[in-house]
């Protein structure tokens, strides 16, 4: 076939062939790309968190109390912090979903397609439950985005997180579809690795959000 | 491209020749046009420095600028000179295809030009920090406190009494005759900066100083005018883009001798246009003029009132979160200063009797809100 097997071997190990998965070892391009993208997302949330800490540090009281806001609003803000049970439940759900996502990863690395599909499906469901729960929580809070800086920062932070969860659910659903169509194997599953890193990131951001907004 | 002589003059000779030729040319032009070269050069050199400082803090800043300038000039001449020298000296002779020595680097050089600039900037940082402390120092008890309020697009200055809280006198005319921020020389004047709307900046070039006026916080700084500036007037201008009237937001600072200032201030407090008295004590108004402020405009451009009789102005401010008021002036100066009201809200001003004539009414926060008041 070819004259020089050595050159061919080198060709297979050339960097230009290392696009999908890198047989020399080391991270694959899509996974590296996702990690870098997540770095940028971390900085995005950092900007929002900076705004939150800034307005909170400047506020005479936090959550705000009259006369900065009305009695009613102060009551709702206080309730958010005093009784964060729904948010706690959502936290548990999201952490669980990170576990199932990781199980799915381990499964597909072992070429266990069934295990992979099951765990991804559960992850998608948990993600959807989180979104529904978040939406329900919004209706129960008693204050809106326009209700002083407390409302603005709360909804902006949780809202963008929710948008990221939504994006993650879409990505996981695509994985589910592709998995069911048999497109993943132990050798080829870069999209799963990348998506799982994204999903863990979404979980970590939620833990930071929950601690900051509801606890601290 | 062009044919060159075999032997080229030394690059140094070319450089010197060019410089001498340029200088000779300059001198010839100056002689022909009868330009005073010496004064011209001095002016040009002076233009590389800020305007003459009128305050102690400004002088401190000027001294710092001078030190930085001489370092900067030395570095500029050295480095730029090096570039020019190399370009002249190291041009490739046509036909010379030999490689020059392929020097990759020199660690000693790298260390030198890392350490030496570090020492220089450390020094510059140190002296600028020392300077900063002096410039920003605020005395425990300033001799005078003035609140400078910046609105869109007009300044007003509120002189505070000794207790630093009570408002003694409000200067609503920011410049011109009878206007401006009058301040005593040789005394510490504390300026408090407030804005009801957007970010502005209080900037007086002769102070070599500016400070932002930020809504929601009170910035402050102190200045002390040099004694020899008594009788001078300095221009000031808003230096932070604040909207479509930004270029018009000018003011003046009038430097007065100590005693002269005290007299002036007392005069202003005494003849301060009567603020509207408590409602019970004023005689009933002969007429009530209704004025609406909405969209940062008054709804009327002309008002009329009876002469020699007290009248009232009912101001309805419909601009949420924005303060308005009504003040009246004529050519001799301010005759009446009404109460501020932040919208939505109303206020009734009882204006004392005015002589017949033409007056201007205006909002002291917003220069465009103005109209004519005819008293007859």
């Amino acid at each position: 076939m070819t004259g020089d097997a050595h050159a061919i071997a080198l060709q297979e190990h050339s960097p230009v062939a290392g696009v999908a998965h890198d047989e020399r070892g080391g991270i694959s391009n899509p996974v590296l790309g996702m990690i870098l993208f997540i770095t940028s997302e971390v900085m995005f949330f950092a900007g929002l968190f900076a705004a939150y800490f800034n307005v909170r540090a400047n506020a005479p009281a936090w959550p705000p109390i009259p006369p900065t806001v009305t009695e009613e609003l102060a009551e709702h803000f206080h309730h958010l912090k005093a009784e964060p049970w729904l948010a706690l439940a959502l936290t548990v759900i999201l952490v669980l979903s990170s576990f199932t996502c990781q199980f799915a990863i381990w499964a597909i690395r072992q070429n266990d397609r069934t295990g992979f599909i099951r765990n991804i499906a559960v992850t998608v469901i948990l993600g959807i439950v989180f979104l529904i729960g978040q939406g329900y929580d919004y209706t129960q809070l008693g204050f809106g985005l326009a209700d002083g800086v407390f409302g603005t920062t709360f909804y902006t932070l949780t809202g963008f997180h929710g948008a990221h969860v939504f994006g993650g659910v879409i990505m996981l659903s695509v994985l589910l579809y592709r998995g069911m169509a048999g497109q993943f194997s132990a050798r080829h599953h870069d999209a799963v690795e990348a998506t799982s890193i994204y999903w863990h990131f979404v979980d970590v951001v939620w833990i930071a959000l929950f601690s900051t907004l509801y606890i601290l | 491209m062009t044919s060159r002589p075999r032997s080229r003059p030394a690059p140094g000779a070319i450089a010197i020749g060019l410089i001498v030729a340029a200088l000779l040319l300059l001198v010839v032009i100056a002689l022909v046009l009868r330009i005073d070269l010496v004064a011209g050069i001095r002016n040009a050199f002076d233009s590389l420095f800020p305007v003459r400082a009128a305050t102690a803090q400004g002088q401190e800043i000027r001294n710092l600028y001078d030190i930085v300038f001489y370092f900067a000039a030395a570095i500029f001449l050295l480095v730029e000179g090096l570039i020019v020298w190399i370009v002249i000296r190291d041009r490739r002779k046509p036909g010379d295809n030999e490689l020059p020595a392929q020097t990759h680097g020199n660690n000693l050089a790298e260390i030198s030009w890392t350490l030496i600039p570090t020492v220089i900037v450390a020094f510059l940082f140190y002296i600028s920090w020392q300077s900063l402390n002096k410039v920003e120092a605020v005395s425990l008890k300033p001799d005078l406190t003035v609140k400078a309020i910046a609105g869109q697009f007009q300044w007003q200055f509120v002189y505070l009494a000794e207790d630093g809280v009570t408002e003694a006198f409000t200067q609503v005319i920011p410049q011109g005759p009878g206007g401006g921020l009058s301040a005593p020389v040789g005394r510490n004047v504390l300026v408090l900066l407030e804005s009801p709307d957007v970010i502005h900046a209080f900037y007086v070039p002769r102070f070599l100083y500016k400070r932002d006026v930020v809504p929601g916080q009170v910035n402050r700084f102190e200045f002390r005018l040099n004694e020899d500036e008594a009788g001078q007037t300095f221009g000031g201008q808003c230096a932070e883009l604040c909207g479509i009237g930004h270029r018009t937001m000018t003011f003046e600072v009038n430097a007065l001798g100590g005693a002269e200032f005290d007299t002036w201030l007392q005069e202003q407090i005494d003849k301060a246009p009567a603020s509207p008295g408590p409602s019970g004590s004023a005689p009933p108004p002969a007429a009530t003029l209704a004025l609406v402020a909405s969209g940062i405009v008054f709804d009327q451009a002309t008002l009329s009132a009876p002469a020699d009789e007290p009248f009232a102005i009912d101001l309805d401010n419909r601009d949420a979160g924005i303060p308005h008021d009504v003040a009246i002036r004529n050519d001799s100066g301010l005759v009446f200063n009404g109460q501020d009201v932040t919208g939505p809200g109303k206020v009734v001003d009882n204006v004392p009797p005015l002589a017949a004539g033409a007056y201007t009414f205006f909002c002291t926060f917003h220069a465009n809100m103005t109209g004519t008041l005819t008293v007859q």
Partner: protein
Amino acid sequence: MATTTLTPAASAYRSGLYEWLTTTDHKKIGILYIVNSFIFFFLAGVLALGVRAELAVPGLQLLTDEHLYNQLFTMHGTAMLFLFIIPMLAGFANYIVPLQIGAPDMAFPRINALSFWLLPLGGILMFSGFLTGGTAAAGWTGYPPLSEDRPGGLASSGPGMDLWLTGLILIGTASILGAVNFLVTIFKMRAPGMTLFRMPILVWTALVTAVLVLMATPVFTSALIMLFIDRNYGGHFFDPATGGNAILWQNVFWFYSHPAVYVMVLPAMGMVSEILPVFSRKPLFGYKAFIFATAGIGALGFSVWAHHMFTTGSVYLPFFSLMTFLIAVPTGVKMFNWIFTMWRGKLTLSTPLLFALGFLSMFLIGGINGAFSAAVPVDFALHDTYWVVAHLHYVLFGGSVFGVFAGVYYWFPKMTGRMLNETLGKVQFVLMFIGFNLTFFPMHVLGLQGMPRRIADYATTAGWNELNLAATIGGFLIAASTIPFLWNVFVSLRSGPIAGDDPWEGNTLEWATTSPPPPYNFDRLPEIRSERPLFDLRHGLTHPAAVLPVPTDPSVTSPPVVVVDEPVARPARARRTRKEP
């Protein structure tokens, strides 16, 4: 001389509109970036001419009030920064980086295309404000509360500001995706033998720039979104009356915008660092020091942002003053390294080198006048005056734009296969250099005399008349200097002399393939043993590619890459050489 025996791929550049609209080839995308950026350069330049025309003499001649004037300088700044200089440098990097590292394309070609097309979209969104009652008019810095939507019409009501915000959010996203692309490409797709410390400096500057874009731009996005929420959803982030903080915007904004200025200049420095060695016929002096200096500037660049806020009364002044002074040190290291690259070299004063020299001399001035503002009390006098306008234009125009033109003249032959005309290039350089200095040097003096920024008019009695007139004349001279440039480009595209693979005796890999390169960039790569692989090849220090394997499968499209098996003795490095007697 490293040449390949392929037929030139010039026909690729007569491809139709469809090819250009759907391409994922980094070379075409790079050219799209460059052309789009030049279009916005001219557009933003026209806006600047409007500003200068108004300021030429005192009195409002052209405008009845400041509303249009404020839009002019706002859109001039915004377009120049976000639609011209950042994407222009990204476009050059897009074209050159894969070639210089011996890769066939960027890591994610489709995302590369997306990153480009978001730019004209964002630009159109922002400029459409002119058709909807006015663009943003609060300066490119958009400080609230002026940029908020307030009743009364004295802030920023109307859709213009929202269009500005949306456009910038799209452009920022494009930038971030581009940064991811560059980083994966540089880390993962270098040809064998190209270690990190053998990469060309342009690739290093692209790397550091990408890190800055990745880390800083999202913070800007968050600020834009917060302002958008304030304006449209009743938010209170920046409204002091309801617990917000106007200075919060400035902190978040400048946290991005200061690293952004390094994004705007580092790739231009990278280009200059390619050009100086080639036209001095010597290697870059202090290659490693250069890399550390670049990385140092990138890192320090994140710590100085509040030096734009010295007069707000809300900043811990000494820290930011110190960091700002410190950043002069690595910049100085680079300046000396460039100068000593030329020292005892053999300089050919072609147009690329002239523009590179222009960069060096003008960026030096910009760096020096910036140091004045690092001294905080001096900044109290100079902030928000024309001194700052002088500073920013000396670094951005005198620096980056001259660097861009150096890059244009240097890489045009590679991109198009034809040389630009030298005489026209020198005419452009002289006119532009004179025009630039005539416009911006007087602004130092105007600032010292107290002329504030962003005013549509000034008092006749202020004494600023002559200098403003001089600056306006200079501005129009700059505009005139673009005419020989455009003429040069259009004529040379049609009938310029054929360039060949390597018209400049370059050092780096892009000159080892045809001009323009084939779609997959390289047929064969020379051996890579230093940061000047082509120089090594040309001077017999490395072997030319020895084996060209035949692909087993005709459908294999990845290009054959050849690595020479036997080790070659490392070329002796001349660390220190003495001048020959």
